[in-house]
């Protein structure tokens, strides 16, 4: 979920969040004010001024009121989702997940990988090292593609904290439902892929 910090070199091998090395380490420190934050702030302030200027104070106040309400409405969800994710991250049974994602895991493996992608909390600094750990722990390329894709399109934390806050909940639900089969389909495809589409031929020796 952070997109400003450089990749932590220590996590490159996947050891940090990998199975078998005890507790996950502390969340990496992130800069609260970064380029992206400044960018949306500037655009937001400019748009607010333009709204006042072009459409008048009444519309400005109405938009402001709606937005404050939307923000307040979402706060309880965000507070809960983040707290839940932080505890879950510390208690996730990594070894158990990795054990069920092996090459012979079939459709069941793809389903578990998709489920794992939904519940695994945290941003890319957690999910990608975890994928490497799964590969090293014996997961096949299909389950890893299913896991990464599921984390990208179905992550419960991202959906609850960010997507529902901004978009109409019915639209979010619809997007979620039509996206449900995507990780399984891509995982199935990845198991059959050759050439440039072959994700990690060396991982299954």
């Amino acid at each position, binding site marked *: *979920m952070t997109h400003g910090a450089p990749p932590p070199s220590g996590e490159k091998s996947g050891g940090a969040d990998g199975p078998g090395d005890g507790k996950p380490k502390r969340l990496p420190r992130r800069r609260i004010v970064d380029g992206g934050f400044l960018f949306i702030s500037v655009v937001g302030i400019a748009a607010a001024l333009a709204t006042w200027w072009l459409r008048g104070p009444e519309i400005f106040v109405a938009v402001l009121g709606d937005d404050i309400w939307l923000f307040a409405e979402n706060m*309880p969800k965000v507070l809960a989702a983040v707290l839940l*994710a932080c505890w879950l991250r510390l208690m996730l049974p990594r070894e158990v997940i990795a054990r069920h994602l092996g090459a012979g895991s079939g459709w069941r493996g793809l389903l578990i990988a998709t489920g794992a992608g939904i519940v695994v909390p945290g941003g890319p600094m957690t999910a990608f090292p975890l994928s*490497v750990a799964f590969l090293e722990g014996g997961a096949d390329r299909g389950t890893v593609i299913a896991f990464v894709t599921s984390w990208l399109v179905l992550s419960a934390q991202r959906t609850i904290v*960010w997507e529902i806050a901004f978009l109409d909940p019915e639209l979010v639900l619809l997007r979620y439902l039509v996206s449900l089969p995507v990780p399984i389909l891509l995982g199935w495809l990845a198991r059959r892929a050759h050439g440039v589409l072959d994700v990690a031929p060396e991982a299954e020796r």
Partner: protein
Amino acid sequence: MTALIFTVALWLGTLIFGVLAWRRRDGTFRAGLRDSLREYRFIIPRLAVGILGAGFVAAILPPEFIEATLGPSSGLAGVALALVCGLAVPGGPVIAYAIGASALLAGAGTPQIVTFVSAWLLFSANRTLVWELPIMGRRFVVARVIMSLPVPLALGALLVVTGT
């Protein structure tokens, strides 16, 4: 009502995990609290600025233009345009969802927004280059991106065809 049930269920789940963490008696409870405070400091200002900004951007977007290019009647051409927009979005979830929210408020259609969000989720340049490429390697990223390319278009087209 649904939203309220969802929020209550979420808090119940959080409570259960809190109890589980507490019963471990190994500092997991406190560590989770500490981590979440740090996450709040990062997330809440972004949500506030993003939601406010999205509302004001939507208020000044020309509705006729959005309606014509990305509206429900824009069909597959709108879906294709939404894909391009999703690929071009810089930065993280706040920027992407704020753009989506502005477009939605200004009259964009559901299939187009679904395509836009899916494209950003699957191909965000920032996430792919800064995180995925160094950690997963070039081979993985190239294969995953090629395999995923049809997905946003297919989802948008599905919703256009079924008239959602």
